[in-house]
C-alpha cells in the first residue's frame, strides 16, 4: 500500500466583501481547488490581528493565508492598507526566525476574481506539500 500524500492544513482569513465573495464566485462557477483550506470570514483584512496568524500556526496550521480587497477597492476605504503594512511586518519576522516563507501568504482577491482565488489555493497547496507538516511553531501534543 502506498504511503498517503501529505495534505497541508491551511487557514484562510478572507475579507467579507472581496475575497470571500471571490471565493463564492469560484463556487458559483464550479471551479475546482483542493479542500485543504478552511476559510474564516472576517469583515476586513485590516481586522486580521497578528495574534490570529500566530495562533493558527501554534494550533497546527501548515499554512496561513490572509486575503483582502485590492488597494483602493476596500469596502472600508483603507482597512487593507493597514493590513498590508501589518502583514509585511509579521512576514518579515516569521521568515527571520526561520519559518518557510511559503507558509504565510497574503493576496488581493476581488469579488470578481474567482479564478484568481482558485489559482492561489492550488499553488499554495502545491507549495506546501513538499515542505511537509509545520512543526516549528506548532504546540507539541
Amino acid at each position, binding site marked *: 500500500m502506498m504511503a498517503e500524500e501529505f495534505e497541508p492544513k491551511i487557514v484562510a482569513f478572507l475579507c467579507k466583501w472581496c475575497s470571500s465573495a471571490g471565493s463564492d464566485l469560484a463556487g458559483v462557477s464550479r471551479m475546482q481547488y483542493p479542500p485543504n483550506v478552511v476559510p474564516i470570514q472576517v469583515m476586513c483584512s485590516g481586522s486580521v490581528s497578528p495574534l490570529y496568524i500566530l495562533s493558527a500556526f501554534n494550533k497546527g496550521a501548515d499554512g496561513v493565508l490572509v486575503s483582502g480587497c485590492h488597494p483602493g477597492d476596500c469596502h472600508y*476605504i483603507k482597512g487593507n492598507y493597514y493590513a498590508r503594512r501589518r502583514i509585511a511586518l509579521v512576514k518579515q519576522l516569521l521568515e527571520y526566525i526561520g519559518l518557510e516563507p511559503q507558509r504565510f501568504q497574503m493576496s488581493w482577491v476581488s469579488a470578481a476574481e474567482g479564478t484568481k482565488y482558485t489559482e492561489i489555493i492550488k499553488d499554495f497547496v502545491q507549495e506546501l506539500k513538499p515542505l511537509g507538516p509545520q512543526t516549528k511553531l506548532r504546540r507539541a501534543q
Partner: protein
Amino acid sequence: MKRTGVFICHCGINIAGTVDVKKTAKDLSKHPGVVHSEEYVYMCSDPGQNLIIDAIKEKKLDNVVVACCSPTLHETTFRNTAKSAGINTFQCEIANIREQCSWVHKDMDKATEKAIKITKSAVERVRRNESLEPISIPVTRRALVIGGGIAGIQSALDMANSGFEVILVERSPSIGGHMIQLSETFPTLDCSQCILTPKMVEVSKHPKIKLMTYSEVQDISGYVGNFKVKILKKPTYVDPDKCTLCDECTKVCPVVVSNEFDIGLTGRRAIYIPFPQAIPATYTLDIKNCPGLLPIACGKCADVCEPEAIDYDMKPEIIEEEVGAIIVATGYDLYDKENLAEYGYGKYADVLDGLQFERLCSASGPTMGKVLRPSDHKEPKEVVFIQCAGSRDPELHCAYCSKICCMYTAKHAMLYKHHVHDGQAYIFYIDIRSGGKGYEEFVQRAVEEDSVLYLRGKVSKIFEEKGKIKVWGVDTLTGKDIEIDADMVVLATAMRPSKGAEELAKKLKIAMDKDGFLAEAHPKLRPVESVTSGLFLAGAAQAPKDIPEAVAQASGAAAKAIAILSQERLFHAPTVAKVNLNLCTGCEMCVHVCPYDAISLKDGKAEVNEVLCEGCGTCSATCLRAAIQVKNLTPLQVHEMIRTSLGG
C-alpha cells in the same frame, strides 16, 4: 452551557452531492453544546424553516447554525426564521458549505471533513454571539443634491415632488449643466433646451427646492440620516430680486473674456448672464475678471444699473444645512485640449470638440444656428468627425469607452448635412456602438438619408495647409490611405469626471474607480449607491452615460434617497466596535486607523460613535491591548474558529 442547534441543508444535490450530510449532522451532534443536529433537502423552503422553528421551541435552543449556501444569500432568511421562533437574529449564523465547499470539491470524504470544520467553527462563533438589536437613529427628512445638470435636476424634482425638501447646489451661476449647451438630442433630434428649460423653471419655482447656484459644498460631517453640510455661497455682487435683466451693465463693462457657455467660441463681459434662459435669471459679476469693485477702479456697471441691483459689498457666505441623504451628480467635463495636441485640438481654430459643434448648430449659439468656420466664418464644405478622441486608448489616453460619442457624432454629421446640404461629412470610427432604443436606426439614417461617409480607421495626422485642414488616415476596411482636405474637424473627445469631483469625493468619503469616476457600492446590484450609506450617485459622475440613462439613474438615486427620507427612524447594524475601558490606555491608535472617524478620545479613553462605526475591526487588530473589539466577531470568537478549523 448554551444549547445550539445545527441544520445541514442538502440544497438538493448541490451540497449533498459532494458532502455527506448525514455524517456531517451526526458529527456535529457530538460537538460540545450541540443538542440538536439534522439535515434536510431544502432548509430555505417553508418546511425547512419550520424544522428550525420547531427545534428552537421544542429543544429550547439558544442559538442555531444553518450549514448551507453563502451568507450573502440566505443569512437574512434564516435570521428572520430564528427571530420568528423567538430568539435574537444574531443567535443564527450561516456555515457556507456550498460555494466554499461542495461546489469546489469532488472528493466526498475530504469535502465532508471540511464541511464539518466549517460548521463547527460557525457553532463556536454563534455560541459567543451577543443578542443585539439594530441601533435606531432619527432622520433629517431633507436631501442635498450636488450638481445642477440634468441628473441633479431630475433627482431634485423627483424628491421634491414626493414632498421632501431638497437643497440643490450648483457651482456655476446657472443650473442646466452640459445639456443646456446642446442643440438637438439623439435619436429624436428634439431641441435640448426646449426639453430642459421647463424642468429648470420647475426647479426655480418649486416650493420644496432651495436652489443654491454659484455655491460649493465645503465640508460634510455626520452619517446617513443626519449629515451636516457646509456650503460656500460665492458672491455674485448682483441682487437677483432687484435685477430686471435690462442688460445695461454688460453694455458698459470694459472687460471681454472667453465665454464658457460657448466654450470660447464667443466672448462675454465680466458681468454677465450665462445664457438667456439661465436659472436663476440674473447677472453675475465674475470677480476674477472684473477690474475692481471700487468705483475708482471701474464701477461703470453700478452707475448704469437703475434698480441698483449691483452690490459691491456682497460677501461670501457659509451656509450650514442638515440633510438625511445626499445625491452626488457632479457630471463630466470633456478631455482637456492639451492632451489631444496630435489632433491639432487647441492649435487650429477649426478643430473643434463636440460641445463646440453643438453650440455652432444651436439656434441660440454664436452663429445663430449656422454652421460656420470659427476662423473665417465661411461655410465648411468638408467636415471630418473623429470618434474615440482620447477614449479606448489605454496607452496614451483613457482606457474606457465614453459611450455617447458614436451617437452624437452621427447626430452631428446629420445636423451638419441639414445645415449644409451640399457638404460632405466623414466619420473616422473604430466601431459603432449604437445599443439603445432607436439608436441603430438613427445611425443607419445618417448613412442612408444624409449619406454620411463612415471610414473605419484611425487618423494618423492632422495639419493645416493653405486654409485647409489636411486629415490623413487609413480606411482599415479597404486598406486605402485616405487624405481629406477638410474645412473643419470635430473631435468626439473623451468624457472625464468633472474637475473637482475628486476633491469632493474625499470630503464625502466615497471611493473612486481607477478612472476617477465615483464608485458604486456594487456594479450590478447597487449601481446608484456609494459605499457610504446615505450617499447616492447619479449621472455621468458615476460613469459616461447619455441623457436618458442619466435621467433614469437620477430617478433611481432619488428613489433610494426617498427610501431613507420616508423613514421616521433609521436602523444601523449593531455589530460595532466596543471598548473595554479597563484595558484602554488612550494611545489613540484606533482613532488614527478608523476609516469613519467613529472613534474619539473621551477622558483619556477611546469612545466609539456606534452610528458612524461600520464594524470593520481594523481598530481591534491595531489595538495592542485588546481593548477594542467588534461585537459578534471578537478575537475570542476568531480564536475559537481557528481552533475548530484546525480540528482542535
